[in-house]
């Protein structure tokens, strides 16, 4: 027993520099990673405006949240965006990745660069650009609609057009990222499968649905859950699309998200205890989605 402990100590000492090299991460994580969630839990049981002393209120913040219509509006909005954005995004990205993988060789990286470019720009600038794209009179989208013979849409003034506009923006922004992830998944599929299917006389569509889709199922789940975690934390795009309508998601709070609500409660009304409770419920929701992620990925490995 004693010698084993001595041996461990010797190993630690011999590798002492390794601990020094990795220590910055763990120090920062302890300060900025471990403490905030714990402190949020403590805060969520209090009433606090950051200036006056904290007041213990037990679970009152959580109880109030159950009856808070705006919180539930934000929650259902975010859930809606997650599904309404993820489904077309997955279908589109997988199709494009498939076409790139099967038909395009030389120009592949040029196409990818074009599709990926919205991803590298600031979400704030992009939201503002799309605010102009969706402008009623001179926006490019209404100009396109007029050119096709449709009447212009008041995009950012009515609930459903607003939601559609946000979804279009998100589709545009995230498509390239998902194509890259799918392409990585597709490239790991052996060419032999395609050869065998072609010898058996399968057509392109059959190959896609019978071979490609089942084989990239792990990637599909991974992408679906990754993008849902992103959508659950949506802030800059809906906030800036409706910033001139009061910062609560515009008409009928159509674009209100959970982080927007958190931001308003905390930094607009200085109700820090309540904001902490909101963030904790959000944490649990996102954690559940992440655990689903691990579960599915773990299963597909076996």
């Amino acid at each position, binding site marked *: 027993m004693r010698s084993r402990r001595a041996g461990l100590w010797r190993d630690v000492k011999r590798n002492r520099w390794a601990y020094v090299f990795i220590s910055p991460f763990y120090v*920062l*994580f302890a300060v900025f990673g471990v403490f905030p969630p714990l402190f949020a839990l403590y805060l969520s049981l209090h009433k606090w405006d950051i200036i006056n002393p904290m007041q213990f209120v037990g679970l009152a913040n959580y109880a109030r949240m159950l009856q808070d219509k705006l919180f539930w509006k934000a929650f259902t909005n975010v859930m809606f965006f997650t599904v309404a954005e993820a489904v077309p995004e997955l279908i589109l990205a997988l199709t494009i990745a498939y*076409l790139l993988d099967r038909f395009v060789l030389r120009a592949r990286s040029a196409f990818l660069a074009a599709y990926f470019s919205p991803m590298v*720009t600031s979400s704030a600038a992009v939201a503002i*650009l799309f605010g*102009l794209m969706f402008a009623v009179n*001179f926006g490019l989208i209404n100009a396109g609609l007029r050119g096709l013979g449709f009447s212009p849409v008041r995009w950012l003034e009515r609930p459903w057009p607003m939601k559609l506009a946000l979804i279009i923006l998100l589709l545009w922004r995230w498509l390239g990222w998902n194509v890259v992830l799918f392409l990585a998944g597709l490239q790991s599929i052996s060419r032999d499968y395609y050869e065998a299917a072609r010898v058996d006389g399968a057509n392109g569509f059959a190959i896609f649905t019978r071979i490609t889709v089942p084989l990239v199922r792990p990637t599909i789940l991974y992408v679906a859950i990754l993008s849902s975690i992103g959508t659950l934390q949506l802030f800059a795009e809906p906030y800036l699309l409706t910033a001139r309508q009061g910062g609560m998601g515009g008409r009928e709070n159509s674009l209100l998200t959970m982080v927007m609500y958190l931001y308003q409660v905390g930094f607009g009304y200085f109700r820090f205890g309540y904001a902490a409770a909101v*963030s904790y419920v959000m944490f649990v929701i996102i954690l559940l989605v992440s655990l689903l992620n691990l579960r599915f990925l773990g299963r597909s490995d076996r």
Partner: protein
Amino acid sequence: MTPRLRRRRRLQLDALLVHALLLALAALILLPFYWMVVASTLDLPQIARYPPRLYPGTSLGRNVRDLLALLPFVRAFRNSLLVSGTVTLSQLFLCSLAGYAFAKYDFPGRERLFILLLATMMIPSAVGLVPWYVMMNWFHWVDSYKALIVPGMVSAFGIFWMRQYTTQSVPDELVQAARIDGCSDFGTYWRVALPIVLPGMGALGIISFMGVWNDYLPPLIILRNVQKFTLPLVVALLANQFNTRQHLIMVGSTFATVPVLIVFFLASRRFIAGLTAGALKE
């Protein structure tokens, strides 16, 4: 025509069709950027006209002057560069150092510490927002770049990325040979490992730089003084306060996006190759 030749013809036709489709999609995706750049060279009446004008005008110079008179854009550009550059340099150093330690040392507790590191990647950042602000208030870091730089100086993703790269590209024999020759631990990292892992640092550098450059919510909460604003904040301010001057909003958006886009397009081939390879290994 033999059946084989006919099939090859059909495949070529398919490939042509697919290329046309993908090209149209690429044009559609780039169209907003194109419109933004073109519109920043127009004056207000030209932008408002129907059908929309899609070729450049001559007002860029005046638009830029008007914009700079309204808001400190050049300063915001410098601020964004300062914050993103500092975070990126620090990440490249600290992540490659920690990645090297995880890849080339067999120290007690290595597996557990690494799993802990991976687990931290699952914590959503928005959740800690309120306590993070409270902490910054305690540290007196509100309205200071320290609040934006210090928490991001090293990241779990970066360490994960650099560990993968170091494991694959730095041979154990080389590390051992350097140690036998009397090279110190840090010297081995600095003189032997670092030159080899430089390409892996390229992709990480782009990812972390763009992440900070584009961040909106943390600076929105922390920064108060307009002179300290980063680009996304100034663009948002412009759009909210001067919303009738669409041509200036276009110039501002161009300011915030085009430099990054140019860097991205220049580096895109290697960057995307690295990204696809990285995603594969996960």
